[in-house]
């Protein structure tokens, strides 16, 4: 009974913390965000602003992301083939 009550209290505390910490409006209004919202579509042609960032402004990051996946695949193939 006591242990269960402590568990419920802990879950409730975490839930309240998350609601207070993450709820409500995001206060971050940075110059970069304002710039992308204003010019993203006209400069890259992508109506989806996420795409305009990851293929328009920061395509180099996307290249690095594909390299990470390439290395992950290489590692899996290496270890799986060597076990046989």
């Amino acid at each position, binding site marked *: 009974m006591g242990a269960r009550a402590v568990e419920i209290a802990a879950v409730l505390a975490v839930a309240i913390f998350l609601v207070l910490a993450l709820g409500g409006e995001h206060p971050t209004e940075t110059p970069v965000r304002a710039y992308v919202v204003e010019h993203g579509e*006209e400069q*890259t*042609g*992508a*109506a*989806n602003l*996420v*795409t*305009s960032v*990851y*293929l*328009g402004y920061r*395509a*180099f990051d*996307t*290249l690095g*992301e*594909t*390299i990470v*996946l*390439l290395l*992950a*695949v290489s590692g*899996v*193939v290496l270890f*799986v083939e060597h*076990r046989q």
Partner: protein
Amino acid sequence: MRKTDILDVVSRKLAPFMFLFGLYLVSHGDLSPGGGFQGGVVIASGVILLAMAKGSAAAAALLPVRKLAVTEAVAFGLILAVGLAGVLMGAGFLADVLYDGTLLPIVRTPFVFILNLLIGLKVGAGASLICLHLFAQE
């Protein structure tokens, strides 16, 4: 592992639609949520579904591991080639040299479309490759 007929029938009917939805996500990346990476992973999840229902040998017969590996490497090489094409045109690595303010029919923005397509191919082949290798271990 024991399988039921339900898994068998549903996965065979569902997998083609998952491939189609993956292609939709890849090709509409500039308009709606999605893009090359997400679409590629959806395509790979169709491969996983086939591998779970029909066995990894059947999935590997549809998409041979060797061809997936070549696809991934070639797609990565083509992404680099697209980036270097920007350098050759004097605009910088991975710069968009195709978009001049006008939206083309169907592909709309050729640079974003091509890169999404290549990334979708690469991620789809890579994620499928990992899963087929791990399933083949069983």
